[in-house]
């Protein structure tokens, strides 16, 4: 099982209480905004702590409230690509790309920077500052940065939502290649039905979250 997740946490007015268990490939977490999709990604990444439950990715327990396991984000080997890219504004593209690569143990690096740069078509951007990039370029660099850190799974939080139509198509092709060629498990959040249908190997539907008692 790629992602075995059961999490519970009170978030403001509602209680997020979700469980899903999915196999390899790209799993779309599909649901309206406010259904807790991003919170689930943050919990898998280790940026948000569930009150109870477990998170097991590729057989590795990242969080388990019963066993008292809670790995810090930097020990989880989970790459994240966010809606807004979140590149480091004070580092050039090259330094952004290599941030996680340089921190990774050599044994954990499964992607060569040269290959990643060619794969994403960003060799002409390496010396630029993030502020000078277009939305599509930002997402390419963000994807490269996440992959180069040597993750064992990838989280993507609406990576296409800030892009125009031609850019969406480009990045979707990149995501399909990651899914099919790199064969890394992906947990993908979107509220766009056509995007979900096209990319998903598995779909986890999240309804509007129930109100807490």
């Amino acid at each position, binding site marked *: 099982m790629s992602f075995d997740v059961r999490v519970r946490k009170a978030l403001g007015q509602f209680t997020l209480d979700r469980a899903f268990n999915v196999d390899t490939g790209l799993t779309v977490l599909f649901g309206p905004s406010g259904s807790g999709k991003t919170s689930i990604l943050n919990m898998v990444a280790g940026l948000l702590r569930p009150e109870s439950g477990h998170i097991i990715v590729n057989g590795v327990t990242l969080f388990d409230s019963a066993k008292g396991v809670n790995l*810090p984000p930097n020990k989880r080997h989970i790459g994240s690509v966010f809606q807004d890219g979140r590149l*480091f504004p004070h580092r050039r593209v090259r330094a952004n790309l290599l941030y996680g690569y340089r921190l990774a143990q050599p044994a954990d690096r499964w992607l060569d920077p040269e290959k990643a740069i060619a794969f994403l078509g960003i060799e002409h951007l390496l010396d630029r*500052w993030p*502020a000078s990039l277009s939305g599509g370029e930002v997402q390419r660099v963000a994807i490269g940065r996440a992959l180069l850190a040597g993750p064992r799974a990838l989280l993507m939080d609406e990576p296409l939502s800030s892009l125009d139509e031609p850019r969406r198509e480009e990045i979707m092709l990149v995501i399909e290649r990651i899914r099919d060629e790199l064969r890394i498990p992906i947990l993908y959040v979107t509220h766009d039905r056509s995007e979900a249908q096209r990319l998903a190997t598995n779909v986890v539907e999240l309804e509007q979250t129930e109100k807490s008692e």
Partner: protein
Amino acid sequence: MLTADEWEIVGLSLKVSIVSVVLTLPIAFALAYLLARARFPGKALVDGIVHLPLVVPPVVTGWLLLIAFGATGPMGRIFSDWFGVTVIFRWTGAAIASGIIALPLMVRAVRLSIEAVDRRLEGVARTLGAGAWRSFATVTLPLSLPGILAALVLGFGRAIGEFGATITFVSSIPGETRTLPLAIYSALQVPGSEHAVFRLALMSLALSLLAIIASEWISRRSAGSRPGHVL
């Protein structure tokens, strides 16, 4: 151009101001970080105490320092017992007085900068394999650099003009604690010294102007070609 006495005054002023600002910066950063990020009981009180030197008359700050650092004062005992030094009537005392007066301005500048740092970028660094310290050193610290530079400039500007707390705390001893403002004040007390006052005041103006130009230059250089996060 300058007489030996005048060089001594200028040199002492620079020494006192630079030492005070450099030593105050880490304290100011720690306080700013605490006030920007931490939640703890009594935070409003800490915030208030940090800002006191901004509103309390400097002569009162100097008097409080005199009590604290005097031979029987709590800080005075610590300094003499642990480090074997007295700061009262010494240039080190002048640096402490300037540092305390400059502290609130420096904390404010750094705090604004830390509050402007996007904390989600620290989260990104964590997911890329950085521990909490590395995330701080590679994301938080460089992104708050404009505030740190602003704090250095504001602090230096405040320290080099410090008068009230210094003269109260460490007196005006030529070659030891008589910085430029104190030297100007003493010269003013002597009849017929208009020329000396004029020269000292001119030096003070020149120093201030140099500091402003230097700060502009530093902030331009640090901003470099990267757009987007300069204050």
